[in-house]
């Protein structure tokens, strides 16, 4: 997996996997399985709210600039 692929699809793949675990675990059992499913479905919700809610998005250009500033 190269860096560009990871940067583009890393988070979507991780969130997809976590969602799938959340959907399945509550089908399998109760108690701890239910809690695992709340975590699994809660993570995409939390990530969305955090990304949509933060004031200044860390745009790629900005992070490049920051990195360049650190080097210089």
């Amino acid at each position, binding site marked *: 997996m190269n860096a560009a692929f990871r940067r*583009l699809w890393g988070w*979507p793949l991780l969130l997809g996997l976590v969602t799938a675990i959340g*959907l399945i675990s*509550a*089908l399998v059992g109760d108690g701890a399985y*239910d809690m695992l499913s709340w975590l699994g479905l809660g993570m995409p919700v939390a990530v969305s709210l*955090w*990304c949509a809610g933060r004031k200044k998005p860390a745009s790629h250009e900005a992070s490049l600039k920051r990195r360049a500033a650190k080097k210089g």
Partner: protein
Amino acid sequence: MKSSTIKTWAWIHKWSSLACTVFMLLLCLTGLPLIFHHEIGHLLGTEVEAPEMPADTPRASLDRVLEAAQARQPDKVPQFLSREIDDDSFWYVTFADHPLAQGDTKTVAVDARTAKVLAEPKFDEGLMYILLKLHVDLFANLPGKLFLGLMGVLLLVAIVSGTVLYAPFMRRQDFGTVRRNNSPRVKWLDLHNLLGIVTLVWAMVVGTTGVINTWADLMLKYWQHDQLSTLLAPYKNQAPPERYASLQHSYELARAAEPSKTLSFIAFPGTAFSSPHHYAIFMRGDTPLTSRLIKPVLVDAGESKLTASVDLPWYLTALLVSQPLHFGDYGGMPMQILWALLDVFTIIVLGSGLYLWLKRRQPRSLIEEAEAVVDFPSGSAAAQGDLSKESAS
């Protein structure tokens, strides 16, 4: 990604979305309160509640339960005897003018311990009923279901094509970027991409299981034609029994045939779920997964004799497992709340998609404005101009 490839996927995404968006908005909006239908019913006082009694209070005979319910509906025939999945303190007995009738059913709730009538809940009126009918079949029965199923298939196409388009639009951005300093179009595109990709797996699962649910009636009909007809061949030339044997005894036969299972519901003879000669007694397991998997036990309703315990075919198993994954009712209240939030996110994805389409005529194409990464063959400016026009139309 090549500009011609993007054009093709953009075309698929545009038309599949446009065709289904209005119906998907309707499904998301009506589905939202349906996630909490039990809680809402509780608040409205329409939920049946049986008095508290010790858990080991002996159960009344099902014959007495049926008798008590029938006394409230003397002119109708019983179709089903059922209960809530998480409450065995009372039974619902459903009546209609004819065993096969689908509409105009009456329900009587009977205490499972005392065989006293608790309530006659009305499941076919009120706001929740209207929302449910809009959600399930647009008040158009089977054609309505199949139409919504088709819209669901288009939604799945829109989700897949949208995921493909995520790549060129997000190649230059970090995950979760929402650019607010540019145009509102770019902001809503970023939100569309963010919420779309984050809800991807959930939306695919809820969409697919919803589509499967629209085929439930057809699957049942096919099952009856395919398997039950073979099983019931010996009864072909017999008249249906004039008097039905003891329901309680038939239920005990079914319990003896499937000792590790508990009762889900009973279909009386002549309904869509049974045969004219049989009680179909549907037994279920009691783990979260197996409680969805029901196994019909056919008991001869004339002689109260076990005919067969039937394994459900794979397509009905798929249907039954797909139902909780559509309803979100299998992981307690926190899951229902998360289900509702994911539903709201989907509404935002649909709404922002519609907004982006309405705002498509702008001096600059969205691809340009959002700095999507497109490979143009030979890098010609003319090719870029073509694409801009195409994606704007």
